[in-house]
């Protein structure tokens, strides 16, 4: 999989960002959406996610909860702290039946949750729905 080339972002178009340290997940989702008419950005960490946001990304973020270093919730906390929470819809990947997070004060920033493993057709429909919301 090609690495992300720089941080040049078209700020006029809503896109999809996937935030996950799991290369297989990034590859799979990139494959699902690479022919769609919107940009797809792959972030391997919470920090990469923040970098994209600070460079103007807007759109749908699919974020894993469990990541080394800054996990999904901590990343959202940083998004809020840095006032980057605009023109975004955030969905969190979660394994079913894991205990709920104790970070209750951040849950309003998560629009939806997606279980892993996910059905590709469901994920595509969901992303399409959310991008329609942002259009």
């Amino acid at each position: 999989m090609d690495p992300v080339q720089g941080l040049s972002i078209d700020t006029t178009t809503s896109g999809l960002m996937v935030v996950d340290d799991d290369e297989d997940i990034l590859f799979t989702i990139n494959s699902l959406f690479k022919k769609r008419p919107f940009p797809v950005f792959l972030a391997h960490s919470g920090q990469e996610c923040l970098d994209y946001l600070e460079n103007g990304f807007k759109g749908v973020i699919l974020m894993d909860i469990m990541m080394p270093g800054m996990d999904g919730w901590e990343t959202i906390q940083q998004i809020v702290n840095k006032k980057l929470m605009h023109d975004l819809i955030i969905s969190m990947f979660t394994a079913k039946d894991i205990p709920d997070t104790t970070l209750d004060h951040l849950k309003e920033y998560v629009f939806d949750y997606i279980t892993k493993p996910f059905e590709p057709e469901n994920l595509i429909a969901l992303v399409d729905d959310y991008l329609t919301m942002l259009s």
Partner: protein
Amino acid sequence: MFDIFSGIPALPVTIIIVQHMPFSTTPRFAKRLSQLCRMNVIIPSDEELIKPESLYIAPGDNHLIIKDNQKILLTSTEKVNFVRPSIDVTMLSLRQDSRYQYTGIILSGMGCDGAEGLAFMKNLGAKTIVQDPETCIIRSMPESAIRLSNIDKILHPLEIRSFLLSLK
């Protein structure tokens, strides 16, 4: 939520949706719902009179209070259950009124918001419905509601949709 409201016709009822989301998301959510269903979808202003056959969405970062069962008040007072809007705040603002038949519905979500409100509605004589936790990605809101009061129906999302359609 979108699965439940997709294709819903204009219903002779008032629906109030309290979704935990930031203020910036509310217009987009409302727009999407208005594309999916035939209800008159409204993001209410403070002191707006409640109209029948309308679907109101609590604006993000505001509690939605129903005053005298006639008017919507919006307030940015403290978060309740860590959220604003809070489902409990809305439900607890209802008053007994024999002219109206209430139904309270709690869907998938994190935390316990809505559990106390739904129990309160039950005591007002409302029908109470909870999304089946087995169909929820995040179960804690429905489970909290089930623990707190005797729920009338525990339903799959498509059954909740069927219930809404039965109101026609």
